[in-house]
């Protein structure tokens, strides 16, 4: 399946919106029914293209939020889109697109920022904002495969109501092999005294150390990814084991 997913020329195709779910004030999950979806790996993404009546086109890349094969979504796939202020594509996806609408997509794409259950070593996931989306797909794939590989998620969010997948992450964290830790940058819930960005201290306390041989996946806005990757390397992590995915 994986080979089929990667070894073919990709063209645009039309998916149908099967469901939509509000995640936060600015983000929602779109469930897509895609004819003949070849399957994907956790961490891959797809491109979405919108065409205006005058022919103007804009396309953007979005991480796939669901695992495959995960049976958590049947034959559908899920995207979670965060609305970008003044964005060309995301406001339509978050506020306008409705169940039954067609949506032009191309994917799955990207074979670097992926995790597969047969991979060696622990997995460290570090996400900022909607950078948690591909990491959630990895957590879902981990659960679906019944993997006992230790996984830790460090998830940086502004405030409690910004957390995407809150109930889902709690459920995934019930596994003995999965540790989920949220880092609040602006406002923390009651009982959580720390407010601030992921720094060297957070990395040292909550991430796997360099000796663990973990593969680390960092996804978020470009400055977030740069900062976290630098912190990891400064802490002694091998850059070859740090995989990054940036978005604007």
């Amino acid at each position: 399946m994986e080979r089929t997913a990667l070894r073919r020329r990709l063209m645009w195709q039309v998916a149908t919106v099967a469901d939509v779910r509000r995640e936060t004030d600015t983000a929602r999950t779109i469930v897509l029914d895609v004819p003949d979806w070849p399957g994907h790996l956790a961490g891959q993404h797809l491109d979405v293209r919108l065409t205006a009546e005058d022919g103007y086109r804009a396309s953007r890349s979005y991480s796939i939020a669901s695992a495959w094969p995960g049976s958590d979504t049947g034959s559908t796939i899920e995207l979670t889109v965060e609305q970008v202020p003044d964005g060309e594509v995301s406001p339509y996806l978050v506020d306008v697109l409705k169940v039954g609408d067609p949506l032009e997509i191309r994917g799955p794409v990207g074979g670097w920022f992926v995790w597969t259950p047969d991979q060696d070593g622990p997995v460290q996931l570090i996400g900022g904002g909607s950078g948690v989306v591909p990491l959630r797909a990895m957590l879902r794939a981990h659960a679906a495969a019944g993997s006992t590989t230790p996984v830790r998620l460090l998830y940086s969010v502004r405030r409690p109501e910004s957390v995407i997948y809150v109930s889902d992450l709690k459920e995934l964290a019930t596994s003995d092999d999965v540790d989920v830790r949220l880092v609040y940058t602006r406002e923390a819930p009651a009982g959580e005294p720390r407010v601030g960005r992921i720094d060297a201290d957070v990395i040292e306390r909550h991430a796997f150390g360099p000796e663990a041989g973990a593969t680390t996946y960092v996804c978020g806005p470009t400055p977030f990814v740069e900062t976290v990757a630098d912190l990891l390397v400064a802490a002694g992590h091998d850059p070859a084991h740090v995989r990054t995915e940036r978005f604007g």
Partner: protein
Amino acid sequence: MSQANYLDGNAAAGALSEVFAVDLTTAVGQCNGCGQTAVFAEARVYVDAPGMVARCNGCESVLLRVVTTPHDTYLDLRGLTYLRVPNS
């Protein structure tokens, strides 16, 4: 050039997959400018330009450019000495 307006090679995966039958984000490329070899996924990709530009994350030389018109896709690979793609 702003330090925060670039993405990475993953962002070019879709456009390149219309041209190549293999996933180029996992290919190793050598920069023609500084000689650095790196996985293409780690290149800096700028999507705000007319078309898409990938630059070396070492020396910022242009590695490749992709421009799509309604009829064709133009691919300029002059900044790469080579691309290494696994056979299996």
